[in-house]
């Protein structure tokens, strides 16, 4: 069965003053209905660009290659008009910062009903009724009062709930959530994660969640993709990636985390910093920071291969295979 969203060999080149560089380099992924797929990566890994590409929201001059099939249409080859029918209707997006994604001087009602009336063709009172229901779904207290309020009158967590309500207004089948909880407190984050989980169960909503927080991934994602320097370096089920990571970068990200259950120890950061656009090293993009790098890592481009069922890895050296050896037998 075809997935709801199937991205094949997607590349995105962005123009800069120094020339055109690949921000996303040959990645493939799929999301099924009712599934939560997580993309993990640091800044500059290409994770946000991947989401923007799907909505045709790339900066001017960007070039794309590959395909992104959604409901039988290739999003990369849609006309602007076709994309307008999809954006906000079938695919919606929630961005990191609710303070900037909501319009500060329009009421919540206007922002919740405008695209509903446009896409669904419902009348003013019908839209209002739906808006109240949406606010109740995302657990905003006193929805009727909230409709006449402005975003500035709510706290960060409430604003993000409203942004999610706006995204859900036209009953999309796919939600792109770019760092939806990064700006929020952990207590509020817990509420948002529970909300996404509920929407997935109740509405079969598919969610592509982008985050650098492996704790968030562990709480909510079914499958996890790890991106580095515009490439997909590892992907697999949540349990595989977080308990038996095979790529040295994934391992490094997990080691750099403070461990809630472990003793107090020095944090073990990955040395160096991630490459910026146009400065991705040749060969394996992670080799300058990798403790296991061998000379061949500097030249050969590692391909993503399946190491155990559903677990794909772009590291021919595979130094962590022995640690996870048992996993591949039972896998």
């Amino acid at each position, binding site marked *: 069965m075809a997935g709801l969203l199937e991205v094949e060999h997607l590349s995105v080149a962005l123009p800069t003053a120094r020339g055109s560089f690949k921000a996303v380099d040959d990645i493939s992924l799929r999301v099924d209905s009712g599934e939560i797929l997580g993309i993990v990566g*640091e*800044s500059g890994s290409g994770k946000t660009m991947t989401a923007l590409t799907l909505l045709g929201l790339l900066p001017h001059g960007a070039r794309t290659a590959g395909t992104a099939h959604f409901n039988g249409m290739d999003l990369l080859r849609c006309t602007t008009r076709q994309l307008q029918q999809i954006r906000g209707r079938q695919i919606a997006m929630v961005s990191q910062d609710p303070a900037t994604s909501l319009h500060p001087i329009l009421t919540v009602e206007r922002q919740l009903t405008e695209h509903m009336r446009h896409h669904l063709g419902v009348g003013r009172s019908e839209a209002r009724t739906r808006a109240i229901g949406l606010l109740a779904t995302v657990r905003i207290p006193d929805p009727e009062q909230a409709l006449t309020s402005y975003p500035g009158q709510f*706290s*960060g*967590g*409430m604003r993000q709930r409203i942004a999610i309500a706006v995204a859900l207004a036209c009953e999309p089948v796919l939600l792109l959530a770019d760092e939806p909880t990064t700006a929020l*407190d*952990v*207590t*509020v*984050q*817990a*509420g948002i*994660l*529970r909300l996404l*989980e509920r929407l997935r169960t109740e509405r079969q909503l598919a969610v592509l969640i982008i985050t*650098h*927080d*492996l*704790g*968030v*991934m*562990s*709480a*909510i994602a079914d499958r996890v993709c790890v991106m580095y320097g515009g490439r997909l370096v590892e992907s697999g089920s*949540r*349990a*595989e*990636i*977080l*308990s038996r990571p095979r790529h040295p970068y994934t391992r*490094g*990200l*997990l080691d*750099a*985390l*403070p461990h*809630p*259950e472990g003793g*107090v*120890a*020095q*944090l*073990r*950061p*990955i040395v160096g*910093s*991630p490459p*910026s656009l146009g400065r991705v090293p040749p060969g394996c993009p992670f080799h300058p920071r990798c403790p296991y790098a061998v000379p061949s890592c500097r030249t050969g481009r590692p391909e993503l291969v399946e190491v155990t069922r559903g677990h794909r890895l772009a590291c021919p050296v595979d130094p962590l295979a022995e640690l996870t050896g048992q996993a591949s037998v039972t896998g």
Partner: protein
Amino acid sequence: MNGRNAFGHRASAGLPTNGAGQKSPPDALLEVAGLCVDYGRGAKRVRAVDGVDLNIQPGEILGLVGESGCGKSTLGRAMVGLEPAAQGQVTFRGRPVTTLGRRRRPADLRALQMVFQDPYSSLNPRRSVGALIGDGVILGGGSRGVAAQRVAGLLDRVGLPVDAAEKYPHEFSGGQRQRIAIARTLAADPTCLIADEPISALDASAQAQVANLLGDLVRETSLALVFISHDLSVVRQIADRVAVMYLGRIVEVGATERVWANPIHPYTEALIAAIPRADGRGILPVELPGDVPDPARPPTGCRFHPRCPLVEDRCRSIDPAPAPVDRREVACLVRAGSGGK
């Protein structure tokens, strides 16, 4: 330490409700007593920090945690004199911390420094890194020559190459910029650093690098560090003691290990339960319903009572004072047997 008694006397005179049991040890480097900080005037007045008592020793890392809007940043700013105290006071090495005004800051406060959250806005983009760091030396009375010499040492100290001095902030990543900001504060030879969310704006791998750098600085030079963060899991990793703040008040203070292993205040418990663990087991973190109330109209009684799972009738009317329990101070009527304020 002779001056301390004189100032301590003045502080207690203006303070009818100093928290019980918060006797600071005589070697406290920075001492906060009955501190209140207000924003706005008259009817619009909001008390962002309401009667906080804290102290910090040399070589100690104190973590200050709480949700956004709880007043932790305001408390941090008041500790270095960036916000005026409405009541109570902050003393540094026995001298009162005066609010920063238009005049030059008193020389004895130079050793009290702050690291800000966002290294993208705290560094002047039009000045070279060497000039930014050198300012700290020149303001302390050093010549330009001395400044130039010390910059190289300071860059090395924070793990940056010496040639970084010629570059500008935009040429660096977020983690490197935060190192530059830390080098700039180190130029003033601080003995106490207040770091307000110093790693929140950074990438995952840079967060651990900067947290380790701050920890190393404290261990090597007996610096005192107040580490303000909303991320309890990071605080747990580096802080010796942790203070949990809710709506302008400290609700629990104690050794980090104890607080983590056995949180007593229900708010501390909720904060810890809300942290998602990266164990791959797919367990959703526990939600704490509701939002932080409006500090302009704080709830009566215990400020946490509208969100508290253990709420009793008396919590709605009695404002709990911090009480010693299990070698820490907790302000909770139910769990700590606190008396009213």
